[in-house]
């Protein structure tokens, strides 16, 4: 009987909603359903077009000064932002962060704060407001709403925690008329003034997979270590890898979810080694890569050919062991770009509608150079954080 009551309550609520057209923060119908992302329907992650595009973008020379990669852009379509021009500087910039729940985000977050300091000195930015959703989509939606409702943000930077789910909130923000800057993970709408991101997951996964294919004998066995399922940027990396492994002679032993927990990673690798040889390791992120390598050491097996990430602990291990490896990069310096973009927009300068930042893996060739640059940095720091020229360097990143 309570069933019916609850159902009634819900139905009544709906009725109420349909009736009251009054203040709604939700976007109009049309916006909601345009170019609904791959994720949105099938739940399958591989989209040939995006895949091809990203792989192509890797070979395109980005516009702009290579010494400031965070300002470079690949095939930008510049859009006019004069509508947002704002006199007098000291703008209030708001930032809704998905979380700082992993070292990559922590590093980037520091970089962003240092960049902001510079802009505040310069009088470009007055107040820099942030909220952290702790990876909770619903929380972040509330955060964004709060910023919009406060009406005090001159520009809103959003780092969505999940692509599809944040879409309505971002559209709401766009609708409020302030410039919206989305970076890292995207959303299923192009309403944002600019969407900043490195080339992307497919490219990352491909860099790693191609390296393994080149450096391993046909028939060699590869183990894929993944953090968790369901996160698009990670799923794209794996989808690309599957493509490339599929066309290769390599045998994929399995793909395991590790939660990025070193102990878990070492357990799994140890177990695979116990059952037979593993010649190559593919990872969708570098967290805990060292643990994987140690598993080979402890089992007394030769080092695998390995794709990690530009996380220093891995790169240092790589140098010290001299193993064959590559460090794919999901450009951490992208955390600088959004605040810069914000000021550009508020100054009415043009910005790319989709701001694709370069994303180059670190190879043996330039490994030592990056290790050199980051010599003082902690082990869970990312080599391509791109903050060397900021005044806070190195202390801000070293002693947090």
């Amino acid at each position, binding site marked *: 009987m309570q069933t019916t009551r609850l159902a009634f309550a819900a139905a009544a609520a709906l009725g109420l909603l349909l009736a009251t057209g009054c203040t709604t923060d939700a976007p109009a119908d049309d916006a909601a359903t345009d170019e609904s992302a791959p994720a949105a329907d099938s739940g399958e992650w591989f989209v040939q077009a995006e895949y091809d595009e990203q792989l192509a973008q890797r070979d395109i020379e980005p516009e702009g000064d290579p010494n400031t990669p965070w300002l470079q852009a690949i095939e930008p379509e510049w859009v006019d932002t004069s509508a947002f021009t704002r006199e007098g500087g000291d703008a209030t910039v708001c930032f809704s962060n998905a979380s*700082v*729940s*992993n*070292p990559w*985000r*922590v*590093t980037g*977050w*520091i970089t962003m704060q240092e960049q902001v300091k510079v802009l505040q000195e310069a009088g470009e930015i007055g107040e820099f407001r942030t909220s952290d959703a702790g990876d909770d989509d619903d929380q972040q939606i509330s955060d964004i709403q709060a910023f919009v409702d406060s009406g005090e943000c001159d520009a809103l930077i959003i780092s969505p925690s999940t692509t599809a789910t944040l879409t309505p909130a971002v559209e709401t923000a766009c609708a409020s008329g302030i410039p919206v800057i989305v970076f890292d993970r995207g959303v299923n709408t192009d309403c944002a003034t600019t969407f900043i991101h490195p080339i992307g997951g497919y490219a990352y996964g491909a860099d790693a997979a191609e390296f393994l294919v080149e450096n391993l004998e046909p028939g060699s066995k590869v183990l894929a270590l993944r953090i968790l*399922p369901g996160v698009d940027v990670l799923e794209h990396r794996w989808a690309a890898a599957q493509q490339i492994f599929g066309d290769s002679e390599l045998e994929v032993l*399995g*793909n*395991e*979810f590790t*939660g*990025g*927990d*070193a*102990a878990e*990673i*070492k*357990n*799994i690798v*140890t*177990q*695979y080694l*116990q*059952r037979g040889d593993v010649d190559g390791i593919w990872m969708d992120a570098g*967290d*805990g890569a*060292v*643990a994987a390598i*140690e598993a080979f050491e*402890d*089992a007394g097996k030769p080092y695998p050919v390995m794709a990690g990430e530009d996380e220093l*602990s891995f790169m240092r291990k790589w140098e010290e062991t001299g193993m064959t490896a590559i460090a794919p990069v999901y450009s951490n310096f992208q955390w600088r770009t959004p605040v810069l973009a914000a000021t550009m927009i508020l100054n009415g300068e043009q910005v790319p509608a989709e701001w694709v930042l370069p994303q180059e893996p670190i190879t043996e060739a330039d490994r030592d150079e990056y290790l050199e640059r980051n010599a003082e940095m*902690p*082990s*869970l720091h990312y080599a391509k954080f791109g903050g060397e020229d900021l005044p806070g360097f190195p202390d801000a990143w070293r002693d*947090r």
Partner: protein
Amino acid sequence: MTRARRLGAALLGGGTGTVFLLLVLIFAGILALNPGFFEGPSLMAFLKQAAPLVILAAGQYFVIVSGNFDLSVGALVGAQVVIAARLIDGEESRTVPVMLVMLAFGIGVGLVNGLITTVLKVQSFITTLGMLLVLYGAIRLWTGGAPTGSLSEAFRTPGRLGITDVPLVGQIPWALLIMLALGAGAILLMRTRFGRILMASGDNELAAKLSGARVDAARTAAFVLSGVSATVAGILIGGFAGVSAQVGEGLEFTVITAVVLGGVALGGGRGTALAAMAGALAIEALFTLFNQMALPATLRPAVQGAIIIAAVAYAARRRTRPALQTTASPS
């Protein structure tokens, strides 16, 4: 002879027997899929990797048998590893002092959990849930979000290395020896007066109090033991795999599941330390089995959940049967 009977009861009585049955089944499964698993080296590797959970289970056992929960162990393990990395920062010489600091910290956390639960009368579920949040946040505040520093070789020895060149098994991991030592310690401790009082406190607090037992002290001590076990586990896990931001996440639920799988009743007063540790071993073995079966990673939680429910339900059935007798001979 009663001792023999008591042993029998300990192994098969109540729900306790289930876990050993489960253990046998799982190992049989692994054996069928991959006999090689039971060769010395790989078995040692398995035990090395299982050791931390077993030790945690021993610690959690004390808390549960005295009628409480400790949800904060996962966060504590994580915190300990991060503390170690930051304080040692690669300096071999600091290893031992830092380990002492960690021990002190572990004891401290246990003490706080215990006192809040016993003195302030806060449900341990809430106390340790709060502690979980506090530890998680505090440690990241302290390190600015991600672990910094690095561990020393010496620190990593207990978790990673062992006695090498042993015939047959190759290497006997220190972790295994520590596990055996602490495990034996736990079993013996339950035979002491402290252990008996702890058990009685979990079974009937009032009766224990009226018999003159320091119930609150005993329960607090149990939390401290749990804190210590989390510290040791932290040292082993950190040693085994090094630092990473996610160390210890979710461990608390795994370990409580393990203990309950061992036939230890939540609410206290029933179950043996041995069975609790066997529960932990069973869980680890289960993960290994999944891996051997190459079961799709996404499916594993489902199977794990089903098995846990089934096992506990089976144990519950066996426990409830004699309970009928009470109604048969009322007082």
